[in-house]
């Protein structure tokens, strides 16, 4: 598998990271090098192996369906780069 600059740009767009053409040129061989090395995993016969889901056996707990820490609007908004009227503010998304 070889990653070209078009693939790097597509992946960067999926990851929501803006990159320039020069970035893509630089990243393509770096990612190829790493992915090429990772591909040795294909040598391992895993046909009868289950993928790991929990590293230490532990069942997921359920809790009561109740509000535990509500009513903290100001705290929630405290670190927002921009907030108004008790909301997070973002650029216009609907014309």
């Amino acid at each position, binding site marked *: 598998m070889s990653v070209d600059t078009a693939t790097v740009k597509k992946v960067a767009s999926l*990851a929501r990271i803006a990159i320039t053409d020069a970035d893509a040129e630089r990243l393509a061989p770096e990612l190829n090098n*790493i992915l090429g090395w990772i591909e040795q*995993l294909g040598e391992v016969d895993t046909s009868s192996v289950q*993928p790991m889901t929990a590293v230490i056996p532990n069942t997921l707990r359920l809790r009561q369906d109740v509000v535990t820490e509500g009513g903290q609007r100001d705290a929630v908004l405290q*670190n927002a780069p921009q907030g108004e009227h008790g909301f*997070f503010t973002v650029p216009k*998304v609907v014309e």
Partner: protein
Amino acid sequence: MSDVTDLGVAELRDGIRGGKFSAREVADAFVIKVSRAKALNAFIVETPEHALAAAREADEALARGDKLKPLAGVPIGMKDLFCTKGVQTTAASHILEGFKPVYESTVSQKLWDAGAGMLGKLNLDQFAMGSSNETSYFGNVISPWRKQGSNASLAPGGSSGGSSSAVAARLCPGATGTDTGGSIRQPAAFVGISGIKPTYGRCSRYGVVAFASSLDQAGPMARDVRDCAILLENMAGFDPKDSTSLNLPVPKWEELLSGDLRGKKIGIPKEYRLDGTPPEILALWDQGIEWVKDAGAEIVEVSLPHTKYALPAYYIIAPAEASSNLARYDGVRYGLRDLPEGANLQDMYAATRAAGFGDEVKRRILIGTYVLSAGFYDAYFTQASKVRTLIAQDFENAFTVCDLILTPTAPSAAFALGEKSADPLAMYLNDVFTVPSSLAGLPAMSVPGGLDKDGLPLGLQIIGKPLDEQGVLNAGLAIEQRAGFAARPDAWW
């Protein structure tokens, strides 16, 4: 009186209790040390007021005749991956610069509840991604160690490099670290201190900036095994806020410490004897085998056949989880926002993340996004998760014939800053001995074993069965008692 900053956690705790010195004297001494060590760049933020407040509380409790808390008056360093209420928490990134959490991580809260004070937030590799502390937005951490006859700056290891540097330089008696693929053990080995990663789920991950959630685990770094046991006891424990937290009591690790290994079988994995490992590392490993034998242990050879696949599996799983975890940094709820003129929401996300993440973080997000993308998920992520199962089974099989496993911690001593940073793959390979046990969620510890020909520390690693932190600490103590490691860096900073 000798300098209190030469004392470890247990000696400080006992000295304050016994009235040998006040908590205030201790806090003052460390605060001054921290303020004079800027050349190491170990701290991102200094919080002397926090350490002094804890000291005042300890001194007042003692004056009243109250029973002192377990860590009353002991100041520590906090890796800047733990959210601390009202104190900037950045994970060494630009994207979180200025973020002041409105909540406290469970691990840090437990330490404050135990009476510890905070000297400051320790530098690290950005989002804990790195093995050398060269990826922090706030600059490289410098190891206090230097090669004999050289002034070149050395890497303190990573990602907990601020923690390792600060403890080795006596800026704090102990510090928190986090370990995803070796980020406590490798830096501890590089600077000649001890550090333990407990069983996955022992320490709550609540409030710890997430890197790879199925691997991340907090643990202590300190100058000796006893201090690690004390700190870990005060960090571990069930937390309903973390769904992977284990609902089990915390054992009395310090009280039960014993360097007597009679009746214990210690496994030596033949696959860890890699081609190209420096002879000094292999010689130290052999020496370690002699030490644990001297402590009464029996040595058995074990096989971990999938060892060679641990690193490639790790470098699929960890970036995959990171790409998902780091999706939350989008310029909306906290941290940096980059809003170019006329940008829409998608542009804002992309610009913010481009400006806010460092190169290594971007590299891992891209790899993670690629291996999870449509068409590649099964070939990469599912296959890696299956290989992870095989790696965990290797350890299970080994533990049917042994109680503990002894290996070197890292395949080299500390390298120079810049030496490996141009080649990501070469850097990744430095974690070859620590990653397999991380993938299997096992408790593992590094203790200093000796010095190499350049006078730099080398570490030995002990890996235990799930939940057997006691066995790991005991074997660590047995090695510590025999290694008699007393070397320390000359203060040039």
